[in-house]
């Protein structure tokens, strides 16, 4: 080790200060969820569970939760199928324009979300497609494909081809080989891709604002709309608290599947 003692101590101190910065807002959300004050006063004026009660009995919130889950499942399904197909094509075949495909896949997340949002919105309006759950799914699937693609192609690169060849030699056709050999090999990659895509879709708001239309509300849209109404803040805080709790799940699962790399792959 080459670092001097004071460098090590200094870096350690800075590290903990930055971690404090990362966690301060989250801690305040957790505390405020139990804050009795109707105006989010700090320090909290007293302990109360009444905002939880209001959130659970609020049918708008429950409906938005359901919508968010349906949208995320739809986007994940499309992203997994398209991402896997693209990954198999790029990994296993040599063809003209192969490198452009990976660039094309990254583009929806490399360009600012507002661009994807307004582009899809202008297209739906120009063609005359009604806004609703399906348009949200379309928008989310577009930027989720790359997540499935990245996970699957990374796995395909590491998977040996020999079991597939052995399967073919033993008389299995393409479908059986895919179902019994390729698919089991890709399973955890598909799972972490699905996890990333689900989390991204469930949380997405920048594109969603453009493709949702008036009648459909996801959880992020609900939070966004309510944030500007001071009387709604305590209930929004409870939803925020629940969302923070939920966000632990994907990190935990990703750690279980393939260590920190998978969770770090979130873009």
């Amino acid at each position, binding site marked *: 080790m*080459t*670092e001097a003692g004071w*460098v*090590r101590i200094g*870096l*350690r101190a800075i*590290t903990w200060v*930055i971690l404090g*910065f*990362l*966690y301060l*807002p*989250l801690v*305040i*959300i957790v505390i405020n969820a139990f804050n009795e004050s109707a*105006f*989010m006063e*700090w320090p909290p004026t007293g302990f109360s569970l009444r905002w939880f009660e209001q959130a659970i009995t609020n049918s708008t919130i429950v409906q938005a939760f359901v919508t968010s889950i349906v949208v995320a499942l739809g986007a994940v399904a499309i992203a997994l*199928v398209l991402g896997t*197909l693209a990954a*198999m*094509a790029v990994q296993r*075949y040599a*063809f003209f324009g192969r490198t452009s*495909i990976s660039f*094309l*896949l990254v*583009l*929806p997340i*490399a*360009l*600012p979300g*507002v*661009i*994807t949002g*307004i*582009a899809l919105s*202008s297209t739906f309006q*120009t063609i005359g497609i009604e806004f609703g759950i399906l348009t949200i799914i*379309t928008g989310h699937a*577009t930027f989720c*494909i790359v997540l499935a693609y990245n996970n699957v192609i990374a796995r395909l690169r590491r998977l040996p081809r020999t079991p597939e060849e052995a*399967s073919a030699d*033993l008389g*299995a056709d393409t*479908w*059986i080989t895919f179902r*019994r050999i390729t698919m089991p090999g890709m399973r955890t990659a598909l799972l972490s891709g699905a996890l990333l895509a689900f989390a991204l879709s469930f*949380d997405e708001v*920048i594109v969603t604002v453009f493709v949702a239309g008036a009648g459909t509300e996801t959880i992020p849209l609900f*939070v966004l709309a309510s*944030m500007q109404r001071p009387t709604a803040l305590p209930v929004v*805080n409870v939803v*925020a608290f629940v*969302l*923070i709790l939920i*966000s*632990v799940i994907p*990190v935990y699962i990703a750690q279980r599947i393939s260590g920190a790399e998978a*969770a770090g792959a979130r873009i």
Partner: protein
Amino acid sequence: MTIDASALVAPPPAGRARRLAAWLHARPRLQLWLLLALPLFWLVVVYLGSLLILLLNAFWTSDSFTGKVNPFDWSLAAFEQILGNEVYRTIALRTVGMALLVTVTDALLAFPIAYYMARIASPRTRAILVVAVLLPLWASYLVKIFAWRTVFLGNGFIAWLLAPFGVQGPGTDEIANSWIVFSYLWLPYMILPIFAGLERVPGSLLEASADLGAKAGTTFRRVVLPIVFPALVAGSIFTFSLTLGDYIVPSLVSDAKFIGNVIYDNSALGNFPVAAAYSLVPIAIMLVYLLIARRLGAFDSL
């Protein structure tokens, strides 16, 4: 991987699916096209097609009463409005300035923590720190903005901290709030690539540098930084691009308008051609940024 051997040893009778498989097997080009058809349809027709329609919208007019776009009614009015008004240039410069400021802030904050994680912390602490950085990344984007909003509020956390000094809280109008929140939101996107880059620096290289008489500062500048630089640029793609298009942070924690606000406000207010024309600004900036990033080798670190 478990393989059910019985199914492989005794092939099923030649059904239609099997004949199709055999037929396809002899035609790799067709296989490739079958694989690519759906993804290409989505990316080219749905996504690139949408970008093209967005571009076309910039050259069309919209009905000033209903806000509906009149397709194929060609006009340069949207561009005239943007080029003729000082405000649009100010906002573009302000946004790019903010994106750069946030990128530099995050690089400065991310480097020490990434360095500590990669080279000083014990393996156990490192694993804990990686999870500790990942958790806020996965926490909801809006929740984090909401948290900062409550922190900035007139009766919120900062106001409470500052009260003993007789200083008022920042409220939710200051442009500096946007700087803090953007830097906060994208910090993990910068820490993780730099951490990965630093982990790849071989310890022997640093020792060699020290043995050859380089001071710590020199080793850092001439050995560590050049190796980590592509990772830093990779992280900067996120901090820069995400700031460039964001319209939610500025509208919730400050009152200064950014490029995203102009695009969103114009599309919401029915001035779609102006929104479409102004969208070309971040697209052009990002394409230039991505090209530069690629030259600096950032794509290998993504």
